């Protein structure tokens, strides 16, 4: 009986400084490959892209009339263990061990100034965006 109480007491004490978490975060539905594999660079237009893929997650300018449409979705799973150890009355040392799969996959459609699909790239959206994003430019008449 005392062993059980000790175990329960230890568990309660642990709950203040140790936590184990399993989290899943879903954001939007992934596009099906057949949706975008039918889009032919050089032939497909802005209207074709929007009709096949719907509304993008983000849009940004590439300069000289070109722009990009990004479609993305997430399925993150996080397994975490957090331990916090009090070292003084007011401060505690803690560390986290997280196995985080932080992937936002998607595709980016690059469109020409003539509103034609130039190319389509697939991968991690934040990497594709970081490579291509630029500040909006002012165009003289």
């Amino acid at each position, binding site marked *: 009986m005392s062993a059980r109480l000790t175990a329960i007491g230890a568990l309660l004490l642990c709950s203040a400084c140790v936590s184990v*978490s399993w989290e899943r975060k879903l954001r939007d*539905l992934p596009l099906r490959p057949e949706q975008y594999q039918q889009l032919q660079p050089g032939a497909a237009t802005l209207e074709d892209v929007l009709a096949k893929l*719907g509304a993008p997650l983000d849009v940004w300018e590439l300069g000289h009339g070109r722009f990009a449409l990004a479609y993305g979705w997430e399925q993150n799973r996080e397994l975490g263990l957090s331990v916090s150890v009090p070292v003084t009355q007011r401060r505690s040392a803690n560390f986290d061990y997280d196995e985080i799969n932080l992937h936002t996959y998607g595709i980016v459609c690059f469109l020409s100034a003539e509103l034609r699909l130039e190319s389509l790239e697939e991968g991690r959206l934040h990497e594709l965006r970081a490579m291509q994003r630029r500040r909006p430019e002012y165009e003289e008449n």
Partner: protein
Amino acid sequence: MLSLLPSCFLARTTTNEPLSAERLAALKVGQSTAQDALTMLGAPHDVVQLGRRSAWRYDFSNSKRAGFSIVVVTLLNEDSRSDRAWLFFDENLVLIGAGSTLQADASEFAMPWSEVEGR
């Protein structure tokens, strides 16, 4: 003993107002203007300048979170889906393209291991 009892919670968060498919469908490429969009949909949530063109974004998001916690273990699932529409206008503010995705209603309360429709 009370703290040993399992606890669970459900939470829902929405942002902006749901988009109307009928109003979006009323906007016609090559005919509708930015003024028509303002009348039908109100002010956009974002405007992106694309040289002389512009793109307007409308969105509504619906997030459902379900969690379960017992002593040191926490299980949490969040399913966020959006209604989204982008309208593209030329330099004369005439609609040259419109795309919409309406899936916010399909978000689900679930656990991290359970199947979610559409995935």
